[in-house]
């Protein structure tokens, strides 16, 4: 829908809202409260819906926001007669708070993350409760008149009522104070912000991280920084919510920091619909309605709230609004502009591009890789083979940064990268295609590759909250190029999850390729492929090997023998042999390592197209 239409409709809806709820027992004060609380819910939705983080501690941001705002008015700067200062201080303080806490907490996931945020929230509760000289403890702050809204020379007392106009069953307009239009405008701005954020460059990467974090890291996105940014934004929004609510209510108390408050944001957002724009507002509206209107009629209102919550999660996991069928936000129509492949944007290295010294990786007492000395020259196509359990995939994982080395060192282009995080290695030029294709199943094939290209162009983290990635033309070009090289143009618009197994593997390689690596790690690229697919991939790998260094793990001996410049054989975590394909074929130790008569077949196989046999 066109932007202007969207905002117009929303504005009209907001204008009618406080009056429309009258016949069901609502009133404008409730409408204002719903909007102000809804800001916090929208912040929480950023965390849960878009970043995939369940925080059980939002109350600390909400509560601290309200206290900072009210203390600014009553104690810190009572002489300033403008609401903006209180709001500004609240948002900045809470934003910083969220940044610091975010840095510390986002390395954890799932229940661990939830519990850590809960622990921090409890600590802030304790601090606010005990710091009586500042906060009055459990007596809270009351009777703090909100300063007026100032705009240049104009000043508006927000508690002023609108002019009287009787609207029958919809009440009288004069029950609405200027708080409501103010809240409505704020919500509109925040809706605009969130909407922009979601489809911004930042939002796109955040969604990718949520969909497949591992892949996102290994195309070069620093997932931690993205989550910290989300946490900070969510915290700041929640702090704003608390500040506005407190100023509107003219009071605040310690209950704004308790576990129940954190829980209510969860309930609001989940009921309304995570990952939707209006869901949090809807959920807030429903629950607040229950709390304020239904609670006067029955004290079973909390039970009703719980039942709605359970029903929604069990039967409508995307929330009430999320269950409405929607078009994917990333339905991107690829525009094919270039037809010739790009020239090399990366400098081609010479000499030894990758080297390991004494590299080991232990899992407990088991040594998956043991003191491996390994080196590859730039431009080589090196195969790494060995029986199952030899440690090949582990070796690749350690090289790529998926697993940390237990001992030893890794050097890439002369620089030690042993401790370098995975995303940074990708940025330096090491890319990996996974054994089990790791893609974004809900995105189009083109979008999959485009994300990798985006990582290449923007770097590990880019705080582009407002701009779309579409403006970066080079990204599309790189993506097209990768698709071209992997012969995936025909399926570019298809949903990646619907591809055949073989196509998914090629897509995985295309994704790795789009990061424009100098060193490409291919982990069993033809496993499970049909004969034609193997042939296709064979040609493709040869083409790639002309432009970059390729390391390949494979069991398909025909393929390996045919295309490799040299082969490293691993056995039981150690290097068993190294040499040209011919040397390896003749090597007795290698033959013994592979059980049962394999040597004959290795000698007999030569041309690509002969039946490829994979070892058991």
């Amino acid at each position, binding site marked *: 829908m066109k932007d202007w239409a969207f905002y117009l409709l929303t504005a009209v809806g907001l204008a009618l809202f406080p009056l429309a709820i009258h016949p069901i027992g609502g009133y404008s004060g409730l409408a204002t409260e719903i909007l102000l609380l809804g800001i916090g819910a929208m912040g929480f939705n950023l965390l849960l819906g878009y970043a995939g983080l*369940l925080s059980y501690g939002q109350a600390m941001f909400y509560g601290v926001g309200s206290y900072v705002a009210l203390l600014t008015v009553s104690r810190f700067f009572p002489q300033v007669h403008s609401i903006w200062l209180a709001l500004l201080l609240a948002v900045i303080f809470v934003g910083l708070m969220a940044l610091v806490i975010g840095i510390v907490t986002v390395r954890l996931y799932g229940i661990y993350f939830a519990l850590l945020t*809960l622990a921090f929230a409890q600590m802030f509760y304790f601090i606010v409760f005990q710091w009586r000289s500042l906060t009055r403890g459990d007596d809270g702050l009351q009777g703090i008149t909100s300063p007026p809204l100032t705009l240049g020379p104009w000043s508006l007392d927000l508690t002023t009522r609108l002019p009287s106009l009787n609207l029958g069953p919809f009440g009288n307009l004069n029950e609405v104070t200027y708080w409501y239009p103010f809240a409505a405008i704020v919500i509109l701005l925040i809706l605009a912000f969130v909407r922009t954020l979601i489809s911004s460059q930042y939002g796109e990467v955040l969604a990718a991280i949520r969909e497949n974090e591992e892949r996102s890291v290994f195309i070069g996105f620093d997932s931690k920084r993205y989550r910290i940014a989300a946490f900070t934004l969510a915290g700041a929004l929640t702090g704003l919510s608390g500040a506005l609510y407190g100023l509107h209510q003219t009071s605040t108390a310690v209950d704004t920091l308790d576990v129940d408050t954190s*829980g209510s944001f969860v309930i609001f957002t989940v009921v309304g619909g995570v990952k939707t724009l209006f869901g949090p507002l809807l959920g807030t509206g429903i629950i607040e309605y229950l709390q304020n209107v239904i609670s006067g009629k029955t004290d079973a209102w909390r039970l009703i709230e*719980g039942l709605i919550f*359970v029903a929604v999660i069990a039967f409508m996991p995307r929330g009430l609004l999320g269950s409405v069928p929607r078009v994917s936000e990333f339905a991107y129509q690829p525009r094919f502009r270039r037809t010739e492949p790009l020239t090399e944007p990366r400098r081609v290295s010479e000499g030894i591009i990758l080297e390991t010294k004494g590299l080991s990786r232990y899992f407990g007492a088991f040594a998956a890789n043991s003191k491996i000395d390994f080196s590859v020259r730039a431009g080589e196509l090196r195969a790494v083979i060995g029986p199952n359990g030899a440690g090949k995939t582990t070796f690749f994982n350690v090289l790529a940064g998926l697993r940390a080395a237990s001992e030893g060192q890794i050097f890439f282009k002369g620089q030690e990268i042993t401790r370098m995080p995975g995303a940074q290695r990708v940025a330096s030029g090491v890319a990996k295609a996974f054994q089990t294709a790791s893609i974004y199943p809900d995105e189009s094939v083109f979008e999959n590759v485009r994300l990798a290209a985006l990582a290449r162009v923007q770097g590990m983290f880019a705080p582009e909250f407002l701009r779309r990635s579409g403006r970066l033309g080079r990204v599309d070009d790189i993506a097209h190029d990768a698709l071209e090289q992997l012969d995936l143009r025909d399926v570019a618009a298809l949903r990646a999850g619907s591809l055949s197994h073989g196509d998914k593997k090629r897509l995985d390689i295309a994704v790795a390729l789009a990061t424009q690596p100098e060193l490409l790690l291919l982990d069993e690229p033809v496993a499970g492929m049909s004969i034609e697919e193997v042939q296709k991939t064979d040609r493709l790998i040869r083409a790639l090997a002309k432009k970059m260094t390729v390391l390949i793990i494979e069991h398909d001996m025909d393929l390996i023998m045919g295309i490799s410049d040299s082969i490293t054989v691993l056995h039981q975590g150690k290097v068993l042999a190294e040499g040209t394909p011919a040397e390896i074929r003749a090597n007795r130790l290698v033959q013994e390592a592979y059980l049962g008569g394999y040597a004959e077949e290795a000698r007999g196989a030569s041309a690509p197209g002969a039946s490829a046999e994979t070892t058991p």
Partner: protein
Amino acid sequence: MSGDTTIDAFLSQLPGTLLDGLIRGLAYVGIALGLTIVFGMLRLVNFAHGAFYLIGAYVGLVVSDRLGLVAGLVVAPIAVAIFAIVIDYALLRRFYDRNPTSQILITFGIALVVQEALRLIFTGTTRSYIVPGWLQTSLNLGFTQYPTYRIVFAIGIVILVCVVWFFIERTNYGLIVRAGIRDRIMVQLLGGNVRQASTVIFALGGAIAGLVGAGASPIYSVDPNTGFNFLVPSFVVIVIGGLGSFWGAVVGGLLVGELQSLTTLISAPASDIVIYVAMALVLLVRPSGLFGESEIIRG
């Protein structure tokens, strides 16, 4: 404020405080045990664990009012197990393989519904149990006069821990369960009924919580908020001990109990917050806890 808060006073109160921490720690062990088993065996984060405790406490209350404490201790875990099985079939089945977030949410919702339903039935009044007369006494232990019931309760927890350990480690059924969770498909191929085993484990975790709820309520009394009040400390315990680890729950529970007890001696207002600080430290420094497996829980 005057007072004899000298080093002597501190040391003289130390044995009593440590005993206290031990008993409270054992209570935490009992409360956390079911939670860690369910997580360790089913990979299910159960925010409804407190609700199991709560149901056990109320069922125990109703039954022991009429038929005595022992009857209450027998009926409560059975009632909770039945409830757990029903919930499992009706709702939780489809959440086993979902992400932890969904699991937290659905179990949190169930806990909310249980709490409010019980509030409507029993009102918000704090209920206490009727304990047989001989248990209402206190034993002279030299350094302190300690309530008999607490000691009996503590012994009961120790027995419970042993029984559960035996079941998991030494019986065939426990073996199937342990294997099944590691590799479902394999066990199914070998003829084991993993579905059934999952339900049994879930019901077991609930029954343990219910039993402890009924057993602990003569000490802590019960009202609708008790479920959530005990839920968070349970998580603190298993985080410190290591999620999914049996011995982690045991050691973690004892540690948290002693920590709280000692804090009350040194600075009582902090006795609540100290467990959150401990949990936060563990999560920051070593999220897998003392005995947990270090899965990929870090970024």
